[in-house]
C-alpha cells in the first residue's frame, strides 16, 4: 500500500470535530461549572447527576437517544431541518452536537474542581476592591485555575478524538461528512485492509501522544503557587 493513496480526510474530520467541540464546550462549560460551584439552588444535585450520565452510559445508549432527538422526527432534528435545510443526524453538525453532549462531563467536572480550588478570600478581596463578578471571573478566578481549564480542554479533546460509538450511531460513516478516523480504522479492519488501519492507527497514536505531551508541559508551566 502506497502512503500517498491514503485518504487523510477522516483525520481532518476528527481534528475539526475535536477542536469545534472543545471550543464550544469551553464557552458552555465555564458558566455551567461556575454556577454549579458557587451557587446553591434547588435542582443542583439533580443537574450534577444528569451531567454525569455520559460517563456511565454506553455510547450506544447515548447515541440511540441522540439519534432519536436529532432524526427527522426528533424535535431538535425538525428545528434544525427548518433552519439549515438539511437533517442534523448523519451530518457533521450532528456529530458536533453529539460530541458536546458526550464530552460535557469531561469539560465541566475539571472546571468545577478548578473553581473550587480558587481560595474564596481572593474572590472576596476582588469584590471589596470594587470589581464586578464578571471582571473577578476573568481576571482573578480563571487565571488562577489554568491547570483545571487545561485539563478540561485536554480531556474533552482527547475524548472527542477517541469517540466511536456515539459517532457511529448518529453519524453513520459518510465519506467527508461523518467518517472520522476512529470509524475509518474500524472500516479498514472490517475490509481486512490492515495496512490502512495500521497507518491510521499509528498516526493517531503519535498525534495523541504529542498532544497530551504538549498539554502536560503547558500544565507544568501554568501551575500557580499560592
Amino acid at each position: 500500500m502506497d502512503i500517498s493513496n491514503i485518504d487523510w480526510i477522516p483525520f481532518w474530520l476528527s481534528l475539526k470535530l475535536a477542536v469545534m467541540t472543545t471550543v464550544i464546550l469551553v464557552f458552555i462549560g465555564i458558566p455551567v461549572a461556575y454556577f454549579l460551584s458557587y451557587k446553591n439552588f434547588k435542582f443542583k444535585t439533580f443537574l450534577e447527576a444528569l451531567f454525569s450520565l455520559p460517563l456511565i452510559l454506553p455510547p450506544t445508549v447515548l447515541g440511540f437517544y441522540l439519534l432519536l432527538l436529532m432524526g427527522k422526527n426528533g424535535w431538535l432534528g425538525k428545528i434544525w431541518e427548518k433552519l439549515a435545510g438539511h437533517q442534523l443526524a448523519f451530518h457533521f453538525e450532528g456529530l458536533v452536537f453529539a460530541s458536546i453532549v458526550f464530552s460535557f462531563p469531561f469539560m465541566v467536572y475539571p472546571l468545577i474542581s478548578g473553581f473550587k480550588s480558587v481560595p474564596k478570600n481572593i474572590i472576596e478581596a476582588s469584590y471589596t476592591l470594587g470589581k464586578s463578578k464578571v471582571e473577578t471571573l476573568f481576571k482573578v478566578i480563571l487565571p488562577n485555575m489554568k491547570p483545571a481549564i487545561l485539563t478540561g480542554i485536554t480531556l474533552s479533546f482527547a475524548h472527542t478524538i477517541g469517540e466511536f460509538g456515539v459517532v457511529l450511531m448518529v453519524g453513520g460513516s459518510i465519506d467527508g461528512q461523518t467518517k472520522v478516523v476512529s470509524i475509518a480504522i474500524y472500516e479498514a479492519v472490517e475490509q481486512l485492509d490492515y495496512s490502512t488501519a495500521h497507518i491510521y492507527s499509528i498516526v493517531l497514536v503519535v498525534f495523541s501522544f504529542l498532544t497530551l505531551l504538549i498539554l502536560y508541559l503547558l500544565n507544568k508551566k501554568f501551575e500557580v503557587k499560592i
Partner: protein
Amino acid sequence: MIKVNVKKKLKGYKGDFTLDVDFELEKGKFLSVFGKSGHGKTTLLRIIAGLEKPDEGYIEFNGKVYFDSNKKINLPPQKRNVGFVFQDFALFPNMTVYENLAFVNRNERNINEILKKLEIYELKDRYPSTLSGGQKQRVALGRALIRNPEILLLDEPLSALDESIRLKLQDEIKKLHNEYGLTSILVSHDKKEVFKLADRVFVLENGKIIKQGTPRDIFIEKDISGKFSFYGQVIDIRPAGIVNIATIDINDNLVEVVVGNDVKIGDSVLVGVKGFNPVVKVISLL
C-alpha cells in the same frame, strides 16, 4: 460617621447565638473589636464590608445607606467603599505586587508612592508566592488603601506573623491610619496590639458588646490601687514551705511570685504591685 446596627443569627461551636451590635464610629477613629474566636468578630467585619448579609438592621457610611433591612437596601461589596485586609493576605497569586495594586487603580504615581511608603517598592515585580508573610501583608495593606476607602477593615491582619514583624507592622498601621486620616476597625485577640493601635475597644462575647471604652478602661482593672499591673498566665506552681511560688508568663517575661492556694496552673492573672513606686529604667532591646 459610620452607623452600624445589625442582628444576625450565627452558629457557634458552642451552639447558636445572635450577633447583635449597635454602634457609631466617628471619622478618623480607630476601633478595635476584641474577643475570643467564635464570638462573631469576623462576621461583624464581613457584614460591614457586604460579604455577609445581616438578618436585620441598618448600616450607614457618611450619610450613605449601605444596608437597610426595612427598605430592602443591601449594597454589594463592590459598591461599598471599604478596604478589607484579610488574615491570610488574599493576594492575587497570578499578579505581581505592582499588578495587585494596579488591578484596583491604574494610577502609576499613587501605586509607586504607596509601595515606597510601605517599603515594598523593590518587590514590585515579584509574585506573592515569593514574599514573606510580613511583605505579603504590606502588599495587602497597600492594595486596600489604594482605593481611598472610607473605612479600613482589618481582620486579624497580623496574627499569622512573627512577633517582631507584628510589632513593626503595628507601627506602620498606626502611621498609615494617621497619615491617610483613615477610619479603621481592627479585629484582634491580641491585647498588646489593641492597646497600641485602638482608641476605642469593644469586647464582643457571644455576639454582644459586653464592654466598651478606651483600651485603658477595658484592660486595666480598677480594683487594684497600684498603678503597676500586668496580665499574665500561670505556667507553673511549686510549693515552698508554707507558701506556693508561681511562675507567671507576662508577655514572654517570666516572673516568680508568691501566691495563695486559689491560683492554679493555666489561670489568667493580673499581677500588680502595691505599696511602693516601681522604678522604670530604659533598656535597649536586641
